[in-house]
């Protein structure tokens, strides 16, 4: 058995990357082309071994050469899809990271983790989620890139997509996303605390975290406020610009949500007595001052809700003020 020549090794390295059906065709053509080139170089006075090396070096990296023979892209995601890819990743990260972070913080807090552990857990889950999103979006786009759809942007651009040059601050789609998220998150958590078996009673049924009496009035009221906030977000989004009336409406809605929630939390009216009784009976929680923990938690949540609502209200007022100054400047 003879050692394969450099030429044969090069041809083998190239056709490895060529679809089965074309392999012989490419190999035979390449064999003839290289032989012709080597002959010409030898005729010009080059030693045969050097001529073979030069001929092969001229064609270059076999993977690269094979890719250009088959016309397959030398990039993961090309210029046609790059912006679709980037926009989708930014959008998904912006929506999903806050949701998972919120869910983890809530779950960790409900199970009584220390604040440091809660932050670490939330950070870890956010990093994993971000990596997962980036990975799978990239995989999908790399596949699209290799199909017929990959040669042009997925979403055609039109002049209508241009941002307005109105000097007044424009309301973006984030307002809508915020409105939907608020409603979905709160109703999701309300259902979750009912059905998730954080603690079980004697029959093995989950004990709701929130006091059942809240359903007779406060919970329906708060859900109604959230629906009103969503409607407000839609109106605001359609108007595109903050007005004084909208800023006032925004303050009223923020307060309508924040004031009762803060009051409920601070008056200990929120937690199901059956739930806290069961929690106190847990042997692994013996020695922990649950009242103290709850007080710290309640004050923290109340402050956060208060600050967020105040910031939201102020934001509307500031934007309405800037909008009235910028009016007419087009």
């Amino acid at each position, binding site marked *: 058995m003879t050692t394969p020549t450099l030429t044969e090794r090069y041809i083998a390295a190239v056709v490895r990357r060529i679809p089965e059906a074309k392999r012989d*065709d490419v190999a*035979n*053509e*390449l064999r*003839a*082309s290289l*032989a*012709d*080139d080597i002959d*010409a170089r030898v005729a010009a006075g080059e030693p045969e071994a050097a001529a073979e090396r030069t001929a092969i070096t*001229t*064609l*270059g990296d076999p993977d690269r*050469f094979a890719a*250009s*023979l088959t*016309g397959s892209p030398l990039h993961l995601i090309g210029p046609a899809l790059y912006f679709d890819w980037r926009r989708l990743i930014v959008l998904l990260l912006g929506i999903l990271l806050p949701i998972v972070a919120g869910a983890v913080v809530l779950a960790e807090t409900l199970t009584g983790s220390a604040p440091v552990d809660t932050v670490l857990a939330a950070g870890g889950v956010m990093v994993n989620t971000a990596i997962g999103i980036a990975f799978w979006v990239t995989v999908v786009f790399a596949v699209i890139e290799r199909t017929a759809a990959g040669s042009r942007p997925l979403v055609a651009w039109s002049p209508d997509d241009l941002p307005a040059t109105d000097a007044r601050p424009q309301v973006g789609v984030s307002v809508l996303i915020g409105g939907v998220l608020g409603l979905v998150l709160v109703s999701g958590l309300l259902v979750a605390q009912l059905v998730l078996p954080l603690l079980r009673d004697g029959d093995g049924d989950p004990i709701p975290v929130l006091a059942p009496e809240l359903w007779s009035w406060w919970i329906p009221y708060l859900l109604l406020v959230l629906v009103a906030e969503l409607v407000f977000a839609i109106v605001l989004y359609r108007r595109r610009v903050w007005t004084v009336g909208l800023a006032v409406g925004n303050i009223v809605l923020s307060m309508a949500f924040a004031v009762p929630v803060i009051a409920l939390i601070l008056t200990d009216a929120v937690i199901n007595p059956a739930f806290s009784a069961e929690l106190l009976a847990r042997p692994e929680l013996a020695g922990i001052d649950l009242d103290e923990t709850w007080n710290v938690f309640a004050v923290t949540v109340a402050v956060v809700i208060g600050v967020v609502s105040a910031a939201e209200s102020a934001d509307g007022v500031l934007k309405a003020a800037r909008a009235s100054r910028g009016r007419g400047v087009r």
Partner: protein
Amino acid sequence: MGDDDLRAVSEATATHRQEVRRGSVVIASLLALREPDYGYALLERLGTAAIDVDANTLYPLLRRLESQGLLTSEWNTDDVRPRKFYRTTAAGDALARELLDDHQRITDALGRLAEGGPA
């Protein structure tokens, strides 16, 4: 100018020259292959005609033009060394004339611009 500046200029020059040449290789190949030939021989003919192209650019180009129906190919096994001969199709011929006209118009316009006349 420093060495880095000189290198940047010569790199930019190489890129621009490559871009000017790129389209002419397609026209040249389609015109030349109205007389059937194999890849290596075409490479030589283009070189003689002062149309510089690398082997690893020309061979993939021939396959692409073939997949677009502008060239057809046929194996010639009469020789000791079997070779794949390419020939320009009617569609390829029509395209070559169209491209050649475009090229001529651009060359004329550039010539007038170079002499300072109206484009």
